[in-house]
């Protein structure tokens, strides 16, 4: 059963009728985009606008966690100057950008793509394994973060952890490595945890897009004589670009701001090896009570992500979504 070929139409003409109908259509056409946006935008504005503004205002004050009622002292850019001069900031920035974000995002996109492509193959569908496969993919996501990290901490434990026991028994190691305790291995451990738990999102998102590609396109390409690899590069991946672009943007922003995984796994340690911007912000605001300084870290994070989003938006995003 084939699908009837999609008709190629000339651009829609305004509804027929008199001048009244014409201007009615134009008006509707003008305000409609905004009306459709209204529910989403109003929720966001009401909920986020004031807190975000509040945070920016806080960052210009010297204020303690307990002084919100009284108000703090206005210090202008002092917090930001201190932030830039603090050696810990540079360390946290490097950790956040390279280890926490770049590393895990690229691993997730690569592995996610592979897995999504595998799950989309005909053989899986033919053997009726799709449901099972897709459900297995979702399992890491279903585990609450605090339990997931605890499970991994135990799995990576130097003596009793499954990973080390396997490595020792197969002779690859003489003694277990305390992955989370050693500076040289701790980031790999955290990377494993983050990638493991957040991979399902990428897989499902890409799979959904893959599923929207009708089989006929593949058949047509095969009839034209293309082999599997050419199909992948010239048919599948280009059609995946919009969703791939969106997913990359989303997980980058989200991972950059992430606090929970590093905090639960190592609290930013050992020493300050795994300190990231989000944990630095938490420590300054809630442990050192320097709310203004913590807010400044938050503003720094927001600025970096804003710049990234705008740049990304004007390059990869626009290209992939083909808009002006």
């Amino acid at each position, binding site marked *: 059963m084939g699908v009837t070929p999609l008709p190629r139409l000339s651009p829609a003409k305004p509804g027929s009728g008199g001048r009244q109908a014409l201007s009615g259509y134009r008006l509707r056409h003008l305000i409609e985009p905004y009306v459709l946006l209204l529910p989403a935008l109003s929720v966001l504005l009401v909920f986020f606008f004031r807190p975000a503004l509040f945070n920016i205002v806080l960052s210009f004050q010297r204020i303690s966690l307990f002084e*919100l009622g009284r108000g703090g002292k206005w210090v202008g850019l002092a917090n930001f100057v201190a932030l830039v001069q603090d050696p810990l900031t540079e360390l946290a920035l490097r950790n956040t950008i390279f280890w926490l974000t770049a590393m895990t995002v690229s691993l997730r996109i690569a592995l996610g793509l592979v897995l999504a492509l595998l799950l989309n193959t005909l053989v899986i569908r033919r053997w009726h394994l799709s449901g099972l496969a897709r459900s297995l993919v979702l399992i890491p996501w279903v585990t609450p973060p605090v339990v997931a990290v605890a499970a991994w901490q135990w799995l990576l434990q130097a003596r009793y952890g499954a990973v080390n026991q396997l490595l020792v028994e197969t002779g690859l190691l003489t003694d277990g490595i305390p992955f989370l305790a050693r500076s040289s291995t701790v980031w790999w451990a955290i990377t494993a945890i983050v990638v493991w738990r957040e991979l399902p999102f990428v897989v499902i998102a890409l799979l959904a897009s893959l599923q929207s590609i009708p089989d006929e396109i593949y058949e047509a390409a095969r009839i034209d004589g293309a082999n599997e690899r050419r199909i992948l590069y010239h048919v599948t991946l280009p059609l995946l670009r919009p969703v791939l672009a969106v997913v990359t943007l989303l997980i980058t922003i989200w991972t950059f701001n992430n606090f929970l995984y590093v905090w639960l796994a190592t609290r930013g340690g050992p020493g300050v090896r795994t300190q990231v911007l989000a944990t630095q912000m938490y420590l300054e605001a809630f442990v050192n009570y320097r709310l203004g300084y913590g807010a400044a870290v938050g503003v720094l994070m927001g600025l970096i992500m804003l710049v990234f989003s705008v740049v990304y938006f004007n390059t990869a995003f626009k290209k992939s979504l083909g808009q002006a």
Partner: protein
Amino acid sequence: MNRARVLFCLLVPAVVLALSLSAAGSVLAAAATPPQAAAKKVELLFRQGDPPGEVEGLVKAVDAWNAAHPNIQVKFETVPWKDAQAQLVREIQAGGGPDVAQVAFVWTADLGKSGLLTDLVPFIKASPPGKGLQDFLATELGTVGDKIYGLPWTVDTATMVYRPDLLEKAGISRFPDTWEDLARAAKRLTLDTKGSGRTDQYGFCWPAGSGPDGATWFLVNAYLWSNGKSFMKQDAGGKWEVGVSPQDVAGVMRYFKSFFTEKVTPESLIAVSWEGDPEMVGSLARGTCAITNFRLATFRLAAKQSPQPIKMTLEPKGSVKRASHLGGRTLAINPNTKSPQESWEFLKYLASSETFKTYNQFPAQKALLAEVQARLPEAEKAYAEQLTYGTSFRDYIFSGANVNGMWAATNREFGAVFSGQKTIEQGGADLVKAMNALLAEGKK
């Protein structure tokens, strides 16, 4: 598929409609709440921070109160301890919050100074708690000037815990008395018991993580205080200053780092920040560790898990004295409360002997302590004795420095030294610098 689509298109407007109606409804209901009539039921909210497994006795006590006081009903609320302070501060500043709250010793003064807790002095004068204020321990911690912001409720400390059978096997007849003895004994207790070529029994274990809530802080302070030093001290003129030099701190770092360099403590503990971690709690049971450092609650859990008996014993003596930290919780009243009198009545009840009959914590009152101590099993007797050596963080609190910040800085610098990120000298210098910064900030 069609059906799913239709369902979706119908369901969505229905849900949105329901939501908006319910939103409107709740706003209207809130506006229309009638003012409470006089001589009515008062509902108090009591908040504490420990998990259900530890507070069964407390719940019983609160239930007993509710049964005996039909006009003052208390609702029991739990916010996990690690988030408790931030949440309390948020709520009180917004105008809400519980009526009576359990607050840590070290936050009470800070919260009180910022106007986030009610001054209890008028209540204490009018209707004294327990056997009177002088019977309570460590009241100065909740005191700022002539105001008292929190009534000490429970006290706790940590002690050394060990497996008597493992010490016996290694030929150690008495538990080490000084810190040096401890290091030596721990070395003798680090063995390869199965002959597999790998150490499977470590001499001394403690959660050496770098997190702001880690346990290194308590051991470091015990070491410092027992040797007559402290992070903060007052000079002759009464001014507060940092009481340790970089060399002093380096000395402490050298001591504790030696446990790792001599492989007397497993390296993996550098990643463990708290006692509740399974690696710590079960270590005595499994025989992985011969000696650890625990609170009472952790000890009880570990004892349950261990087929071999374990015992509490005193912390090592330094050159000057024996010391350990005296931690604890106070009870405070929210200035936003609508029923301050009733809140005080309930607070007094919580601090009474009736509550402590079922609540298995140590009361911060001399008169009641004896009662509770009498009920302790043999293995826990040392805990009661250790409490007498307990030193509170009063110096740190009075110096004006942020104690939580000191705690975080200590664990962080020690953690950096343990993991080799910094040399001992560098770590010592950096920690003293951080202490000075905290002290300076506190003075502003």
